[in-house]
């Protein structure tokens, strides 16, 4: 076991050396979100600048540090100085930043987020004192955005694989006991105590046992697992080794969705690096623990996030769920005992083993220990990936971390297609498994989608039902046919053709589907409608009785109008209108012919952002 220790020592020296480089080091957030915001172009501009000026600097590509709305983030570290972080960089802006630091030796002032040093001031704050970051507790995300995810050494330098080494000196039952004491529950949605599944698997006699990491992340609008794998793949892989050691598996699979090419590439690279240093394969680090991990790419089916469907799909079959019991922990992949854990559950393990169960369980609530990552998105000001101790209230997350909304708050959607929308009255609910369930939604895997008064609840419910309807595997009739009827009824209501009796139909049908479906997909599919009906009935009635969509979203119920007094006649909307519905000479208020209007929104957007007057076009219901 000494081989890893000497390598870690060297890695620590290299890590320290990187922080004390005699030349500048530039860190760029280059996760999928950073790249989507233009990080690749920014890196090109940095390289171009360095080439042109002949300056020497290192460029380190890191994962996402969380505040995605600030991407692309670029940090500059000058010799002897801490990293200083800048937001929303563009190729032209980044030149200014580099000029300031590299030519003038001055800290650049614009778009400054903060530095990574010890003390912050008002003018020069610490990065982690930023209002989005200060309330967070980063345990599982501790390395994301800090280290180069493609460097095993940087992971080692931050105590990587120390937990695995510790495990190898413990018995399997000691490891399991530690996880039991930590109170860790599954982060994939259901919140099942992690140790309990492991024990069942451990105690089932079999020649072979399997561990599967569920990285299918099917909830549309959630990206916690992607970001974690892209930013710190070794954390997951170390966690998988710990789990496998405890439950007695020699082989594991990572089932990951094909829509995450960067995460897959990072995993492949990390697995190769592990193999090269004896962290994977036969007799790991000289112990008698042998273990290997393989990657299986999902082929795009939401239901394959469900355990038994996932197993079918790895076996090469249609991803259809089957009845349980037998539970996979007794009979799973190829009939062998199999434990399936979520990415975040597994990536939390090294932290628990390294710091101890008592340390981990100090965070969280009585029933829900530790921290949880959430993807905070929708109509909130500060969007991104966050990690908070369980027990924080929705208000603290949405208004504290998220900075609130630009318009009035309407609801927050949790739990994705299996969850529901919670309104104003639930804002002070502390987030944990029990509280969210009691409020009528679920914790789910961690999607938090904030909705404002311009989001229609009926439309949102219809959206989710459309999704589950399309993803239903078709095995159970209530799910296959019932969800279609739910969609039809909701569609009717959105078109202003609903009737009062439809509300009861939705409720009855919803209950039937829940009761008559085999797997979690069908059992939870009606939740978005049922919670919406419970908490936002008035909005359904507005669609049915008044034929109005209060949020002005449902297309058949809205009209577009030009406010004559505001319109300066700048003609931008005339130019973008695809059907010639808007006419009018320059400098005179334009007119809109609703009979030609297809409600494509082009004029509305151009007026908001591009026109001389702005906001002269309104969408009303």
């Amino acid at each position, binding site marked *: 076991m000494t081989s890893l220790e000497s390598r870690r020592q060297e890695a620590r020296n290299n890590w320290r050396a990187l922080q004390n480089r005699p030349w500048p080091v530039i860190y760029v957030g280059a996760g999928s979100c950073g790249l989507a915001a233009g990080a690749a172009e920014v890196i090109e501009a940095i390289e171009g600048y360095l080439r042109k000026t002949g300056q020497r600097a290192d460029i380190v590509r890191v994962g996402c540090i969380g505040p995605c709305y600030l991407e692309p983030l670029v940090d500059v570290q000058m010799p002897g100085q801490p990293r200083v972080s800048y937001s929303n960089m563009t190729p032209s802006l980044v030149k200014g930043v580099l000029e300031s630091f590299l030519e003038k030796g001055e800290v650049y002032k614009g778009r400054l987020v903060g530095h990574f040093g010890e003390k912050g001031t008002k003018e020069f704050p610490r990065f982690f004192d930023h209002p989005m970051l200060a309330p967070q507790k980063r345990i599982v995300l501790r390395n994301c955005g800090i280290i180069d995810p493609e460097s095993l050494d940087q992971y080692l330098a931050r105590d990587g694989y120390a937990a695995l080494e510790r495990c190898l000196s413990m018995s399997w039952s000691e490891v399991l006991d530690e996880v039991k004491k930590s109170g860790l529950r599954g982060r994939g949605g259901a919140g099942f105590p992690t140790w309990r599944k492991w024990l069942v698997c451990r105690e089932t006699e079999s020649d072979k046992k399997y561990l599967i990491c569920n990285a299918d992340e099917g909830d549309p*609008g*959630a*990206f916690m697992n992607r970001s974690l794998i892209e930013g710190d793949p070794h954390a997951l892989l170390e966690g998988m080794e710990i789990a496998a050691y405890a439950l007695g598996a020699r082989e594991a699979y990572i089932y990951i969705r094909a829509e995450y090419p960067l995460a897959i590439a990072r995993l492949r690279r990390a697995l190769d690096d592990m193999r090269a240093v004896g962290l994977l394969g036969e007799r790991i680090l000289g112990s008698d623990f042998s273990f290997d991990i393989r990657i299986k790419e999902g082929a795009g089916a939401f239901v394959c996030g469900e355990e038994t469907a996932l197993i079918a799909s790895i076996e090469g079959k*249609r991803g259809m769920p089957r009845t349980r019991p037998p539970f996979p922990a007794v009979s799973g992949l190829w009939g062998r005992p199999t434990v399936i854990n979520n990415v975040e559950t597994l990536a939390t393990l090294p932290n628990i083993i390294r710091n101890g169960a008592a340390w981990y369980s100090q965070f969280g609530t009585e029933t829900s220990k530790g921290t949880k990552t959430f*993807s905070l*998105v929708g109509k909130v000001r500060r969007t991104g990936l966050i990690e908070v101790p369980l027990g924080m209230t929705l208000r603290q997350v949405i208004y504290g971390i998220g900075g609130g909304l630009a318009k009035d708050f309407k609801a927050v959607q949790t739990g994705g297609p299996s969850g529901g929308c919670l309104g104003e009255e639930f804002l002070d609910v502390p987030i944990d498994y029990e509280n969210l369930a009691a409020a009528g939604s679920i914790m789910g895997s961690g999607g938090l989608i904030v909705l404002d008064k311009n989001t229609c609840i009926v439309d*949102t419910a219809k959206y989710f039902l459309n999704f589950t309807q399309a993803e239903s595997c078709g095995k159970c009739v209530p799910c296959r046919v019932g969800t279609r009827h739910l969609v039809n009824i909701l569609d009717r209501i959105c078109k202003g053709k609903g009737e009062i009796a439809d509300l009861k139909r939705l409720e009855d049908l919803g209950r039937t589907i829940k009761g008559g479906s085999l797997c979690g997909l069908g059992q939870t599919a009606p939740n978005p409608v049922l919670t919406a009906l419970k908490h936002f009935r008035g909005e359904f009635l507005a669609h049915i009785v008044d034929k109005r969509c209060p949020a002005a979203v449902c297309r058949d119920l809205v009209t577009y109008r030009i406010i004559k007094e505001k319109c300066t006649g700048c003609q931008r909307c005339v130019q973008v209108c695809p059907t010639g519905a808007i006419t009018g000479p320059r400098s005179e208020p334009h007119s809109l012919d609703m009979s030609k209007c297809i409600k494509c929104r082009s004029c509305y957007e151009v007026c908001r952002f591009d026109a001389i007057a702005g906001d002269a076009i309104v969408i009303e219901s």
Partner: protein
Amino acid sequence: MNFEEFEELKTHFSGEAADLIPVLQKIQGAQGYLSPESIRRVSRWLRISENEIYGVATFFAQFRFQKPGRHVIKVCLGTACHVRGGEQILDVLKRRLNIEPGAVTADGLYQLERVACLGCCALAPVVSIDGKIYGQTSVLKIQELLDGGLHHDQP
């Protein structure tokens, strides 16, 4: 995919039934879709009936059975993108390209797809064109991209 390419592909697998999905993924990665001929070859090799292969392949959203377009435009309709107007972006593309999602334009240039989440939800609404992800798009921005002519890029 010709005979030699298919034989080369076979060397990456052990030829068990569980290889079916990865094999189909690899074929689609190489030729962009699953041609009837490639399914026939897989059937003979893995000893799984063509029927069953179609059964598996059509179950998953990833697999296509028609030649792809030169440029693949995927509009995200995940929840975050939906509440930020993804549907409207899809509408613009449908109108401009005159095709429905899943189809390819008559000239073979564009293929339009809808996807449920590309994992960049914080930058919603999101569109991916030929694998490159564009965040914070809008009805107008997407038209500018189209007007800029994706045809001039290399495929």
